[in-house]
């Protein structure tokens, strides 16, 4: 048996901290889920069969899927220019990705409120120009939530996509063009397949992120579009049912754990680059 080196002691503070402040309390949450208000698996039964909870789960999955597709597609197009554009284009795109990335989720959600609400900028303009006769409802519904979440997640999708695009060998594209493939065909039949691993990676990252999203749906959904994360908040703080909130959390953790395991398997075959 190998002696444990003294440098292993360096690992102790962080691991100890995470165990005490995260793992043990999470066990406490699991305990809540099977003991509140009474011992048993009743809360899991509710979480998986109650029509209200199920409708929230389904809405969460639906919104997250739409948001994932939209933000990965949008991120793909901006990343394309970020990686392969002229130097000036690259700088412009980099700023457009980095500035929103560093700005607080609250500011960004507020910006969408200012744009989309019934007295917001877009409605005021469109009415002034005469496109609309009465204000169009763009927040406090799924549209607003999807726009806000996609906006938040595009930068997160852009980073894995950029690293996938940087590994594409320029000469393969030149070969395709040289053999007479059009620009469009080279893009769809050569470039996109070569970055497929990046697309799947970005999609999973964005989807996992979107599932646990709380702030944007709460603000842009205005309490009408309740997603899984907000449901947990409501069950803990507003119409308390701690056991149910805990059970939903555990279900979510297991689901995300499964997705992450998928992500790891997806990442492994390509190996270190």
């Amino acid at each position, binding site marked *: 048996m190998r002696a444990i080196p003294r*440098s*292993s*002691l*360096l*690992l102790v503070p*962080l691991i100890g901290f995470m*165990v005490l*402040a*995260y793992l*043990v*309390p*999470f066990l*406490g*949450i699991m305990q809540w889920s099977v003991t509140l208000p009474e011992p048993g698996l009743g809360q899991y039964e509710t979480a998986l069969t109650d029509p209200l909870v199920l409708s929230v789960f389904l809405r969460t999955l639906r919104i997250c899927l739409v948001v994932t597709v939209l933000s990965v597609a949008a991120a793909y*197009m901006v990343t*394309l*220019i970020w990686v*392969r554009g*002229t130097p000036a284009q690259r700088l412009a*795109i*980099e*700023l*457009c990705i*980095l*500035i*929103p990335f*560093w*700005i607080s*989720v*609250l*500011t*960004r*959600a*507020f*910006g969408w*409120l*200012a*744009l989309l609400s019934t*007295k*917001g900028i877009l409605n005021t303009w469109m009415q002034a120009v005469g496109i609309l006769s009465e204000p169009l409802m763009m927040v406090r519904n799924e549209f607003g939530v999807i726009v806000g979440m996609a*906006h938040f997640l*595009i930068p997160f999708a852009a980073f894995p996509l950029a690293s996938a695009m940087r590994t594409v060998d*320029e000469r393969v594209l*030149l070969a395709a*063009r040289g053999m007479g493939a059009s620009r*469009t065909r*080279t893009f769809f039949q050569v470039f996109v397949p070569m970055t497929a691993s990046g697309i799947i990676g970005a999609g999973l990252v964005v989807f*996992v992120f979107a599932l*646990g*999203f*709380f702030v944007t749906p*709460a*603000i842009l959904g205005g309490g009408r579009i309740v997603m899984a994360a907000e449901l947990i*908040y409501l069950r803990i*703080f507003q119409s308390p049912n701690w056991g149910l*909130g*805990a059970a939903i*959390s555990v279900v979510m*953790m297991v689901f*995300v754990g499964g997705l992450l395991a998928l992500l790891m398997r997806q990442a492994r075959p390509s190996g270190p680059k």
Partner: protein
Amino acid sequence: MMTRPGRLAVCIAAIIAVFLLMPLIAVIPVSFTPKRFLSLPEGEWSLRHYRALLENPAWAKGLGLSILIGVLSSVFATTLALLFSLGIWIARPRYTGLLMGIALLPMVAPPVVSALTLYFFLITLSQYNSFVAFDTWAGVALAHSVMIAPYAVVLITVALAQVDRRIDLAARGMGAGLMQRIRHIILPNIRFGVLSALLLTFVLSWEEIGVTLFITSVDAVTLPRLMWMGLRDNIDPAIAAISVILIVIVVTAILLKAIGQRKGGNA
């Protein structure tokens, strides 16, 4: 590069780029509205919401609290993360994967689950003391440390991966002890990684809201928590004013960095 993207691709990217900047630009006119509710200024522009930020002591208090919590939690989290990453790099323990998994857990778990977990942690602590507890600055700093430490681990581990092991081996061969190797050999080589970990963890704590909502109520009101209250009840244009200030800070920092890099690159 010979195969630049076509004009259509550039146009689509430009539209998305505008989409990315749109909400940030939108808050600027709103912040100058003379009215008390979310609206566009018609004719006259007013600074009343900026004045409100100065006059209402809640904003100054929130600002101070956010800075305090940000500094404490980023220093604490980065220190723990630095020790951990050094330990992994030097000792190369057998269960590196598992240990990394534990260290990175709060980063990959759904934020709302982390929030509930930390809520449980702090209300449990509240039963034993009133200092590190629910709705106290120390409690928030501790909870933020849990959330931001994984990011510091990632940055420092990446920095360590670029250190040449042979220089450490040479120092060891010449009889340097563990502390000497860390202080004189390893730390100087990863100082940029450690600094960027400090900066990133500070910013993450500074704008943290998901967990903060669960673990505070009326006393430990950080700046994001205050903004949240102004957004939820009755949309307060003071949020636009504070947002504009935050946007100006971020844009200035990013532009300065971009200019710095360009100069560095050309020189």
